[in-house]
């Protein structure tokens, strides 16, 4: 059976940076009956996310994302759509894209489909466990959107 991982990324105590965790938590309860879907939370950068993907057929990554829109805007991108800075000035890790390339070089089994959902944050400078209002409103949209994409396909050709 095809295995899927859902990863919520961020810092759960830094206001809107916790949105990935919030979505993951919601998805965990909504997907509890799906034995082939794992939901986890991560706080670290590229290499750690890449490592978590190994062995899965499909992945959904949810995080706060700067896209230039208003807080609460929802983006859906493929890894190619990320502006991965491949520079070495990264705090303690590589970027997600560089990590994926590393996995490719090493021949690690990465999911054939990786989908990234981003939510434009408002405040990521203040400690707090609550999302700002606009970002909180985006949570159900993202949850529903992810659930739709993960719904068992009616078209057998689509199941990868």
């Amino acid at each position, binding site marked *: 059976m095809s295995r899927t991982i859902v990863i919520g990324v961020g810092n759960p105590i830094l206001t809107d940076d916790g949105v990935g965790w919030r979505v993951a938590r919601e998805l965990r309860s909504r997907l509890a009956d799906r034995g082939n879907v794992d939901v986890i939370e991560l*706080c670290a950068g590229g290499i750690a996310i890449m490592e978590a993907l190994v062995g899965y057929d499909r992945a959904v*990554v949810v995080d706060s*994302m700067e896209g230039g829109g208003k807080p609460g805007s929802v983006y*859906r991108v493929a890894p190619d759509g990320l502006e991965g800075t*491949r520079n070495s000035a990264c705090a*303690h890790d*590589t970027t997600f894209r560089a990590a994926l390339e590393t996995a490719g*070089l090493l021949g690690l089994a990465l999911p054939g489909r990786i989908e990234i959902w981003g939510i434009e944050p408002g405040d990521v400078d203040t400690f707090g466990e609550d999302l700002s209002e606009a970002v909180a409103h985006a949570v159900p949209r993202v949850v529903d959107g992810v659930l739709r994409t993960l719904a068992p396909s009616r078209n057998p050709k689509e199941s990868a």
Partner: protein
Amino acid sequence: MTKRISIDPITRLEGHGRIEIFLDDAGEVANVYFQVPELRGFERFCVGRAAEEMPVITSRICGVCPEAHHLASVKALDDLFLVEPPPAAKKIRELFYMAFFVTDHTTHFYALGGPDFILGPDAPPSERNLLGVIRKVGIDIGRKVIDCRKRNHEVIKTLGGRPIHPVGGVPGGWSKPVEEEQRRAIEEVARQNIGFALFSLDIFNKIVLSNRDYLDMVLSDSYLHKTYSMGTVDDGNRANFYEGLVRVVDPDGREFVKYSAGEYADHVAERVEPWTYLKFPYLKAVGWKGFVDGAGSGVYCATPLSRLNVSDGMATPLAQAEFERFYETLGEGKAGGRHRPVHHRLATHWARLIELLYASERMLELAADPEITRKEVRTIPDGRVKVTGGVGCVEAPRGTLTHHYVADAKGVLTKVNLIVGTTNNHAPISMSLKRAAEGVIGKGKPVTEGVLNRIEMAFRAYDPCLSCATHSLPGSMPLVVEVKAAEGRILQTIRRDDTGRVGGTPPFLRKAPGAEEESGS
């Protein structure tokens, strides 16, 4: 004369790392400032909570070293609640911590600091990362790094109870004992770690120490600062990451002071400068004399290099042999029976690998210790709360980490103070940036990509973790170098972040322009 910089909201939002280089009227470097945005409200977030929530909360401050915060926090609670953990609990904590150290130092060497040497200081930034290391040295090295991270994460998960944000530590001990089967698995991991650490030192030998140009760069004045050194030592004055006394030696290697964690405020004060949110800790007894080195300045350093400098030796045999080789190669002889400190900041990379080896050996000692599987892992606090508060201290990979909590009689927090590893090094980092800038900028010469990297190398040696120094999330750290005239006019800006975007603190992910936007439903 340099002009004072005021930080307005726009510059604050520019990005995580901003280096401002001020030139004097003659076009020479006058001052260099390192700026990071401030995160707000940590103390307010904590005050009013039960103190025992802190090991879980503080581990979330930062995605890079949750384990260090977790342990400093439980040690602060031991002190606050006046409780002494049983021997097995202390050993489990240290074992857990060694697995973390191995992971963290490995990641730094292969993904961040090492690429400068392995690929060369002039390699393009897009290659100066783990990907570049693999392309240059081979796939095998990449597999070793990933395997090392994986097996140690497994240990952290087993002992800490969760893959990230551990919950193993509790005031008075650890939440569960180690089973024999787990112990055997961890022992095997430790053996593999030792092999990996020796392999890493061998790479360093071959690539850096055998290359005259690199060795000259390590030993050059551009990366030299004779400051005080800080680190934790055991009762034999050997390096220890989990417990002991904080020892400070002067620039010539003489012991300046040795104190227990709880006395930190007697010895360390924090300097506030008008141009930054960062605080600059310094030795109280020496005093703040500005961003200068020497025995007359209270600036000290807390890094893998300074930890070796304060130690009379390493507590494990292979690391001890490497310690001796380190000082024989880079040192300037002995004084008072001790090696004189090494002050070449780029030597920190070698020191980090010696610590990697020590952490691996110590991990094996602990995993093989019959006491590690004992069932007595907790002393239950009896309800007392120390009036002056509790202080906990560990050596984090980036320097001495101190947590200080004050609580009321019911254990509800009234005051919280953290001095995180990188913060110790704010003054030395600023000094090193200036020194590096002076070496490559001046007389109107254009500032190039290569110049930027020489400056970056100066701070990468410290492995600065701005994640918790500013209490912000990990992720890409765009670096902006601005060269300014004395009156503040920007002469040149170089942005290392290749997105070219201006504005916004960087959440981990950034969307490329034109990527699909969900219309919503």
